[in-house]
C-alpha cells in the first residue's frame, strides 16, 4: 500500500513531480500514463528509494516512511526498471541466486528454478544472461522483482520487448499477485485491460 501526499521531486531547476498525491491500496493495480519525460520513472524510482524526493507531507509504503525506513521499504518493494540490469557473465539462474542471497532469502537451485519457471525461463536458466534476447532479459528482471514476495510492485514499462506469450505470462503473474494482496503500480504507454485505475502524470501531478 502506497500513500503519497504533496510529493515533490526535481532535478536541478527542472521540477518533475509537483505536489503529487497518490493512494494505492492492497490488491490494487494502477497504470501510470504520461508523455516521455513526464516523470513516471522518477516517481517509481523515488518510491523504491533509488532517488530521493525533495519534500513531501506523506510518503509511506505499508505505513513505513520512505526516507526513515529505507531498508524496510526495499525489502517490501519489487522494482522492475525499464532496462532491467543483469550480469551477462552469470547465467539466468546465477543472476537470480545472487539477488536472493543478497537479500538473505532461500536461493537453493530448486526454488530459483521454480521462480524462473513462473516466467517461462526455466529451459534457459543455465544459459549466460549475456546470450538472452531483450524479451528474456525483461522476464528475468520481472522474476527478480517478484522473487522476494514483495507487498508492492513498481514496474516501469514491464511489457517492453515481450512477445504475446511473454505479455500473457507477466499478466497472469500480476493477476496472481493482485489476488494475494500485492499493490501494483506500473507505467505503460499501451492500454492495460486488467488494471483497476489509470492515472495520467501531467505537469508533475496525477489526474
Amino acid at each position, binding site marked *: 500500500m502506497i500513500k503519497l501526499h504533496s510529493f515533490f521531486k526535481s532535478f536541478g531547476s527542472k521540477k518533475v513531480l509537483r505536489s503529487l498525491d497518490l493512494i494505492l491500496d492492497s490488491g490494487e493495480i494502477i497504470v501510470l500514463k504520461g508523455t516521455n519525460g513526464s516523470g513516471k520513472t522518477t516517481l517509481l524510482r523515488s518510491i523504491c528509494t533509488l532517488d530521493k524526493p525533495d519534500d513531501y507531507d506523506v510518503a509511506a509504503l505499508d505505513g513505513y516512511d520512505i526516507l526513515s525506513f529505507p*531498508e524496510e521499504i526495499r*525489502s517490501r518493494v519489487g522494482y522492475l526498471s525499464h532496462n532491467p540490469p*543483469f550480469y551477462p*557473465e*552469470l547465467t539466468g539462474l546465477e543472476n537470480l541466486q*545472487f539477488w536472493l542471497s*543478497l537479500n538473505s532469502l532461500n536461493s537453493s537451485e530448486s526454488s530459483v528454478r521454480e521462480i524462473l519457471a513462473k516466467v517461462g525461463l526455466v529451459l534457459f536458466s543455465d544459459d549466460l544472461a549475456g546470450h538472452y534476447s531483450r524479451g528474456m532479459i525483461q522476464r528475468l528482471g520481472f522474476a527478480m522483482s517478484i522473487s522476494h514476495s514483495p507487498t508492492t510492485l513498481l514496474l516501469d514499462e514491464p511489457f517492453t520487448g515481450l512477445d504475446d506469450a511473454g505479455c500473457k505470462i507477466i499478466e497472469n503473474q500480476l493477476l496472481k499477485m493482485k489476488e494475494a494482496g500485492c499493490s501494483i503500480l506500473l507505467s505503460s504507454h499501451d492500454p492495460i485491460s486488467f488494471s483497476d485505475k489509470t492515472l495520467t502524470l501531467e505537469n508533475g501531478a496525477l489526474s
Partner: protein
Amino acid sequence: MNPIFVLLKKEFKVEFRSLQGIVSSAMLAFMILMSLRFSIVEDSILQSSGLLWASILLTGLGLITHISTRELERGTIEIMKLSSISRYQLFLGRMCGYLCLLWILSTVIVLIHYILFDNLFTNNFVLAYLVILVGCIGIAAVGTLAANSTTPMYGGWMLTSLFSIPLLLFTVIEAAIRCTDSLITGSSDFELALMLLILYNAVFVSGGAWLTEISD
C-alpha cells in the same frame, strides 16, 4: 549466506568469466614497470620498493575504477542498492571483492617486479609480500569509497584515481614503502611502519563503512 560473502563471490565469478579487469591491469603494470626499468638509471631508486608500490597503486585503482564503472554502465549497481542490506555491508562487500582481485593483481605485479628488478628483499621476500597484501587493504578501502562517490559523475573513471591518490599517498603508501624499504635496508623502522600501515587501513575501512552508511 552473509551478504558480504555473496558480493565477494559474485565479483569473483564475473571477473574470472571475463578476465577484463585483471588481465588489462596486469598488462598495464608490466608496461609501467618495464618502462621504469629501462628509463631510470639511478641505482638508489631501482634498489627501493617505491616503483613496486607506484605500480600497485596506479593499476589497482585502475582495476577498481574499471569494475565500478562497469557496474554503473550496466545498471547492476541498482540491483545492489535495491537489496535490503545495510549500506555499510554493501561497502564492505564491494571492498572485499575489490581487495581479493587486488591481491591477485599484486601477486602478478610482485612476480613481474621480481623478474625485472631481481629480488630486492633477499631473505625477507615472504614478509615483503605479506606487507603488500596488507597495504592493498587501504587501497581497496579508499578506492571503493572514492568509486562510490565519483563514478556517477562525468569523468568518474578518472576522478576515482584523482581523489584516491592524494588520500593514499601520504598515508598507506608512505607507510607501506617505509615498511618494505626497511626490509631491503634492514633498518629498525619495520615494526613502527607496519603499525602505521595497519592503523591507516583500520581508519579507512571503518571510515568508509561509516560514511557509506550515513550517506544513505
